C-alpha cells in the first residue's frame, strides 16, 4: 500500500513543480505586459485649448480602458473644424505618430482642431498573438530617447471577451468573423451602450456630430501586399476635396491613389461618418512592412526604419502593391505622406468652403521630414 501513496506524492510533486514553474514564467513575463498599459506622455504645443476624455462625449466609457484623450486646439480666428484620429488600429504606428506629432507641433490661426492619437486606447495595451510585434518603437529627440507603444489591431480581449462566433455589424447586419467585434474600424457608427469597441466608435461619431466637424481624418497603415495602399479613401461627400488634393499632391511629387468608399461595406469610419454625420470623411493609408505577412525578422527597426529584404524580393516578383526597394519605407516617409495629404486636403477644403476655412500649420514640412528623423521634431521626453 505504501508504493501507490509514494507514486501519488511524486505525481503531486511534479504537478506542484510544474505549477511553480508556470507561476514563475507568468510573474517574470507579466512585467513586460503590464508595461504596455502605461500611457506615454505627449507634450502639446502652446495652441492647445484643453484636453478632455472621450467619456465626456460618451459617459459609458468613463473608467473603462476604452476612454482616451481628445486634444482640442482653437485658433484666434473663426473657422471650420477638423478631426484627426490615429490608432484606430494600434499596430498601425504611423497613424499614431502622425497625430502625436500634430499634438506637439500644431498651430491654429482659424478654426478648431480635435486630435485623438490613441483612438482605440485598449488596443494600445497588447499585441496580437503570433504577430511577434515589438511592444515599443523608439525615437531619439534632441532631448533624449522617447518610447511609443505599438499595439494591436483589435481591442484587448482582456477588456472585451469573449468574441461571438460571428460579428453582425450594428445597423447594417453585415456579417464578419467574430474577432472583428473588437475592430474599431468595423464598429462605426457605434452603439452608445454597446460593447467597449462600439462605445468608443459611438463616442467618436458623436463628437463629430456634436461639434459639427467639417473634415475628419482616420489614419491607417497596411501591409504592402494590400491592394488599397498609399491611398486617400473618400466617400461621395469628400470626393470633391480629395480629388482637388490628389491633383495638387501629384504636382508636388506625392503619388496617391484615390479610392472610393464602398457604399455597402459598413462599419468603416469613412462610410459611417458619411451616412451618420455631416462631416467630409477621409481615410489615409500608407504601407508598413511590419504589418505584412511577407516580412522578415520582426523588430522595432522594421516598424521605424522599414527595411526588409523579403519585401524587396516580393516587389521583384510582383507580389505587392507598392514599390519597395533596399531603402524600405521608413516611418518618416509614412508620416510625411500623411502630413502632406492632410495639408493638401485642408487646403482644398479651404478653397471650396472659404467661410469655414481652417487655418492650421506648425508641423514639419513633409519633404524636409523625409530627409531627417522623426525624433528631430518631437518634444524632449
Amino acid at each position, binding site marked *: 500500500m505504501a508504493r501507490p501513496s509514494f507514486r501519488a506524492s511524486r505525481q503531486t510533486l511534479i504537478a506542484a513543480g510544474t505549477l511553480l514553474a508556470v507561476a514563475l514564467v507568468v510573474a517574470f513575463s507579466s512585467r513586460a505586459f503590464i508595461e504596455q498599459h502605461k500611457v506615454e506622455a505627449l507634450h502639446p504645443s502652446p495652441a492647445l485649448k484643453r484636453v478632455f476624455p472621450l467619456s465626456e462625449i460618451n459617459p459609458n466609457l468613463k473608467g473603462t480602458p476604452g476612454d482616451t484623450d481628445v486634444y482640442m486646439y482653437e485658433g484666434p480666428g473663426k473657422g471650420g473644424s477638423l478631426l484627426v484620429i490615429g490608432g484606430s488600429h494600434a499596430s498601425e504606428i504611423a497613424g499614431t505618430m502622425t497625430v502625436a506629432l500634430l499634438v506637439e507641433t500644431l498651430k491654429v490661426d482659424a478654426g478648431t482642431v480635435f486630435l485623438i492619437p490613441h483612438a482605440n486606447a485598449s488596443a494600445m495595451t497588447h499585441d496580437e498573438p503570433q504577430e511577434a510585434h515589438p511592444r515599443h518603437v523608439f525615437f531619439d529627440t534632441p532631448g533624449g530617447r522617447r518610447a511609443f507603444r505599438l499595439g494591436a489591431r483589435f481591442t484587448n480581449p482582456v477588456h472585451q471577451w469573449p468574441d461571438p*462566433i460571428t460579428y453582425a455589424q450594428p445597423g447594417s447586419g453585415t456579417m464578419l468573423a467574430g474577432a472583428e467585434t473588437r475592430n474599431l474600424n468595423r464598429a462605426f457608427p457605434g452603439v452608445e451602450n454597446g460593447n467597449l469597441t462600439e462605445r468608443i466608435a459611438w463616442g467618436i461619431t458623436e463628437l463629430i456630430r456634436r461639434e459639427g466637424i467639417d473634415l475628419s481624418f482616420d489614419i491607417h497603415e497596411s501591409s504592402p501586399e494590400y491592394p488599397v495602399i498609399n491611398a486617400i479613401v473618400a466617400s461621395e461627400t469628400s470626393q470633391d476635396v480629395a480629388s482637388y488634393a490628389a491633383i495638387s499632391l501629384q504636382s508636388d511629387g506625392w503619388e496617391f491613389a484615390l479610392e472610393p468608399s464602398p457604399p455597402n*461595406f459598413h462599419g468603416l469610419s469613412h462610410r459611417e461618418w458619411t451616412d451618420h454625420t455631416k462631416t467630409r470623411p477621409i481615410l489615409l493609408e500608407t504601407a508598413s512592412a511590419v504589418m505584412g*505577412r511577407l516580412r522578415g*525578422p520582426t523588430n522595432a527597426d522594421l516598424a521605424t526604419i522599414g527595411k526588409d529584404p523579403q519585401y524587396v524580393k516580393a516587389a521583384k516578383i510582383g507580389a505587392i502593391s507598392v514599390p519597395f526597394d533596399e531603402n524600405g519605407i521608413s516611418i518618416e516617409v509614412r508620416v510625411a505622406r500623411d502630413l502632406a495629404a492632410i495639408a493638401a486636403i485642408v487646403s482644398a477644403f479651404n478653397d471650396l468652403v472659404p467661410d469655414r476655412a481652417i487655418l492650421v500649420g506648425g508641423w514639419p514640412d513633409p519633404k524636409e521630414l523625409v530627409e531627417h528623423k522623426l525624433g528631430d521634431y518631437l518634444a524632449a521626453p
Partner: protein
Amino acid sequence: MLAPLWLLLIMLVVFVACIVLARLPNGLALVLAAIAGSLAAGQGVPMHHMVEGAFAYIDPILLIATAMVFMASLEDSGALGSISRSLMIGLHRQPVLLIMGMTIFIMFPGMITGQSTATVLTTGAISAPVLVALGIPRAKVGAMIAMSAVYGMIAPPISLPTMIIGSGVDMPYTGFEIPLLIATLPLAFAVNLALAWPHLRRIDLQAVLPGLGEDHAKRYGFRLFLPLVIVGGLLAAIRMIPAVSASVGVALVFMIGALAGAVTGRRFNLARSAQRSLRQALPVLGILVGVGAFIQVLTLVGVRGMMVVEALALPSFWKYVGVAVMMPLFGAVSCFGSASVLGVPFLLSFLGHNEIVVGAALSMFAGLGDLVPPTALASYMAAQVVGEPKYLRVAKYTAIPGIITILWAIGMILLANPIARIIPR
C-alpha cells in the same frame, strides 16, 4: 543572424529530436523548438513572445476542453447511447440514406459554429456508435467524422476561414453560400459513401441494437435529451440574435449543457467525468499551446514571411502545387492561421479569377489542416470519439479523401470564372 531557411531547419530538427530521442510530448517539443529557433536567431529566450504565442489559442483550448466535458456528460447520462439507438431504429432500412443523413447531421454544428472540433465532439460522438454498429471499422468511422467535421466547418452559413480570408482584403462575407456548398457538400456525400460502401449490408436490427447500449429514454423520457436541446438552442440564439447573446461564449454553452446533463438522466459524478475527459484532451491542448509559441517565433525570426514569399514566387503551375501543399501543412498548425497568413496573399495572387469562388476554395485548403499530423485536431478528436487508440489510423483513411478535396479545390480555382457565371445572384 542565420538565414530564415536555416532557422527553420534548426527548429524542425530540435522538434523531431525532442519527440524521437527524448520522447517528449508534442506540445513541449514545439516549445523547445521555438526556444532553439529564437536562440539561433540571436534573440535569446524571448519570454513575452513565448507567453503571448502560447495564449494565441486560448479560445479553441477552452472550446475543446468544455466540449469534451459536455460529451462525457452526454455519454454518462445515457443520452448518447439512446440517441444512437433511435437513429439506428429509424433509418436502418436505408443504409445509403442513413449515411447521407448522418453526413449532414455530423456537419451541422460545424456549419453554425465554424469549428471542426466542436462538430466531432457533439454530432460526431452521437453518430459514432451508429456507424460502428453498421459494421464500418472504427478507424474508418473516425475518418468519416473527421472529414464531415472539416466540410462542416467550411460549409455555409458560418465559414470562419472564408471570413478571415475575406477580411484580409476587405471583402464582405456575402455571396459565399453557393460556392461554399459546391466546395463541401458533394465531396462530403461522396467521401462518406465511398468510405462506408464496402461495409454496407442489410442491417439486422436485433443483432446491432445490443451493441448500442441501454435505452435510457424509456426511463427518463424527453428530459434525457434536454442538454442537447439547450446547447442547440443557445448556439442558434447566438447565431440569430447576437445583440442579446453576444457575450455568451460557445465554451460557456457547452458547460451549461454539461451541467444540465448531470441532472437530466442517469446519475453520475460530473467532476469525475470532467476529469476523465480533460485527461483525454490534455495532449491536444498541450499541442495548441506549443504551436502558438512556435508560430510566434517563426514570425519573430522571419521564417513565416520567407515561407509566404517562397510560395508566391513559385511559377504558375507550381503555385497550385504550393497552395495545395503549404496551406494544409500550415493548417496543421492552425487552420485559421493558414487562412490569414497564406490565404490572403494567395487570394491576391489569383487575381483575375472570381475572388468569391477562389476564397471558398482556399478555405478548403486551410480547413484540411485539421487533418494533417502532428496536430490533426479533427482526426485526433475523432479517434477518441470512436475509441480508436491510434489517431494515425484515422488520419490514414483521411489521406485519399484529403487529396481528392485538394484536387476539387484546385478545380474550383481553375474554373472560378465559369462557376461564378452559373451561380444565381
